[in-house]
């Protein structure tokens, strides 16, 4: 055993776990080959087990790809501080305010935000464009000075700590790789400037393996695809074992397929390393899939904080309701709302199309809910779903979607057909138009 210590085992386990989601079958086979040859070159703990080329199937089953079961105890690997698996940071943001001075006056990008991010959890910041997500992330990283409020890392008040002393890893939307440095040099940068006392080459190799880029260390960022660059940026951010990882729309510039692969890979990696993670995203699916906690932003305010399920099931505000799913939006005085006996002081009412109970035969009431008559006025073909527009007798229109199969079967509706429906009052939410506005307040 060339080096010794224990932490690589966790890392190695994670490596092979993440092998699956990050790659297609072909790439996986290729990676397996690369890995086999890397091990053959005596990279690291070349135990007998590791030297045998492994099959993609073995990879998927989570065979440790670096160290065999034998050498675990003596191997030192990527250890840097006490342990590889960092206990993530507890991040607390208190009454955060950030104003920008612009030529047109003061712009309030963040207006009093309180949020706690538990150690080793993944938190997603979700919101429309310009809502202040990036600004909050940059405040936490220390790239912007706060106007008011405090940031705590565990018990340390980090508000006035310099960026370079915060020990955060950050992945930028544009990746911000150093174009004049090779991939390996990029990853090594943090180790060099922090003068960390580790075997740098080994560490870089391990990290590249973690993000499935073994063998690309000598390339320049220009020579990589977008997805590969993204992974280099991630490896670079993780290099000096940060306790907090900040990701600003890390998959923003990638196509849907690569996004999904990387997303799964990211989740594995983050859980393996155990770092607290904050991710900014536009993509709701991404946020709900990745995060333990989702923070919904609008106009520099937090609209709701909660688990993905909570946010989907119980939207706290009209904005969240509108933002996280399809909604129908009708006047509070419309026929449907009145017949549903929904009472509100607001001028408009919204509900989800999926909460519409629809009947093709006339009934007076169902389970005590009065039904309202409407006519099918439009049918839009959206691939796997079919969307109908239903017009009530007071000319209010709502949308109603069914899957293609339903549309071809029992629930197929014809234009001009008379239908009857009700919506439970519990599914409705009253609001004023300005409640759901996301245009920045100037």
């Amino acid at each position, binding site marked *: 055993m060339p080096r010794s210590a224990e932490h690589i085992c966790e890392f190695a386990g994670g490596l092979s776990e993440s092998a699956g989601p990050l790659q297609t079958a072909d790439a996986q086979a290729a990676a397996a080959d690369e890995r086999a040859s890397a091990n053959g070159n005596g990279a690291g703990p070349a135990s007998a087990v590791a030297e045998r080329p492994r099959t993609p199937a073995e990879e998927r089953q989570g065979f440790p790809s670096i160290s065999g079961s034998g050498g675990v105890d003596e191997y030192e690997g990527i250890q840097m501080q006490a342990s590889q698996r960092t206990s993530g940071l507890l991040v607390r943001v208190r009454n955060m305010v950030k104003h920008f001075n612009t030529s047109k006056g003061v712009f309030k990008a963040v207006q009093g935000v309180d949020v706690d991010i538990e150690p080793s959890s993944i938190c997603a910041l979700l919101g429309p464009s310009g809502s202040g997500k990036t600004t909050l992330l940059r405040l936490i990283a220390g790239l912007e000075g706060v106007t008011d409020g405090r940031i705590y890392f565990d018990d340390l008040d980090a508000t006035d700590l310099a960026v370079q002393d915060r*020990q955060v890893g*950050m992945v930028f939307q544009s990746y*911000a790789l150093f*174009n004049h440095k090779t991939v390996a040099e990029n990853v090594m940068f943090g180790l060099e400037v922090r003068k960390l006392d580790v075997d740098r080459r080994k560490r870089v190799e391990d990290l590249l393996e973690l993000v499935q880029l073994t063998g690309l260390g000598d390339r320049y960022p220009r020579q990589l695809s977008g997805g590969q660059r993204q992974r280099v940026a991630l490896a670079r951010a993780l290099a000096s074992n940060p306790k907090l990882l900040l990701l600003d729309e890390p998959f923003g510039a990638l196509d849907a397929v690569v996004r999904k692969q990387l997303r799964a890979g990211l989740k594995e990696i983050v859980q393996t390393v155990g770092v607290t993670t904050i991710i900014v995203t536009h993509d709701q699916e991404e946020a709900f899939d990745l995060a333990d906690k989702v923070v919904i932003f609008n106009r520099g305010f937090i609209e709701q904080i909660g688990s993905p399920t909570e946010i989907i099931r119980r939207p706290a505000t009209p904005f969240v309701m509108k933002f996280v799913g399809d909604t129908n939006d009708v006047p509070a005085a419309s026929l449907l709302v009145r017949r549903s006996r929904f009472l509100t002081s607001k001028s408009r009412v919204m509900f989800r199309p999926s909460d519409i109970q629809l009947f093709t035969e006339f009934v007076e009431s169902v389970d005590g809910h009065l039904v309202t008559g409407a006519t099918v006025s439009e049918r839009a073909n959206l691939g796997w779903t079919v969307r109908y527009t239903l017009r009530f007798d007071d000319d209010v229109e709502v949308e109603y979607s069914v899957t293609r199969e339903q549309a071809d079967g029992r629930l197929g509706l014809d234009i001009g057909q008379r239908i009857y429906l009700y919506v439970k009052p519990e599914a409705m939410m009253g609001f004023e138009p300005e409640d759901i506005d996301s245009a920045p307040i100037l």
Partner: protein
Amino acid sequence: MTLMLAAVSVPLNSVFGTVAAILITRNEFPGKVLLLSLLDMPFSISPVVTGLMLTLLYGRSGWFSSFLAEHGFNIVFAFPGMALATMFVTMPFVVRELIPTLEQMDLSQEEAARTLGANPLQVFWHVTLPNIRWGLMYGIILTNARAMGEFGAVSVISGNIIGKTQTLTLFVESAYKEYNTEAAFAAAVLLSLLALMTLWVKDRVEKAAAAEAAK
């Protein structure tokens, strides 16, 4: 003399030019536009006037003359004066070359470096400088070319003391005037060779930059 002038003014101007360009692009302050146009002044003022201005400031009856006399400095008709004149005339090149490069530069690379633990000096050395190095190189070459060829300002302030404060360019002129044509042409050829060398270096730099961009 020519080489010495270049050796002094080129490095000084490169350093000051870089610092100035960074400060100018990274900060917003009142009078920024004014400062930018001031930087172009050496282009618009005749070099002869520059020389006169310096003589006026530092000359025997100039504003700083008593201070200089006290400390035993001699600027006019001596090397420091010529260096000053050359530096003034060549000042805009580096700054002007760098400002557009710096403005275009993606700041997130620097920010990334900071989050990775680099202090400001390390950020400059590892990230900013490599990003602006071609612009800087080009500015330096232009500075060098101008420093060698400068005539007007230097001729006024140097006094053209033969063998002492005479640059090649000045020598060409005086030799020519004294009908010493052979010497004039010899010096001119030497000067041209220096210019050619500068151009050659510039060419190499551009090729290297293009090669890197294609990488």
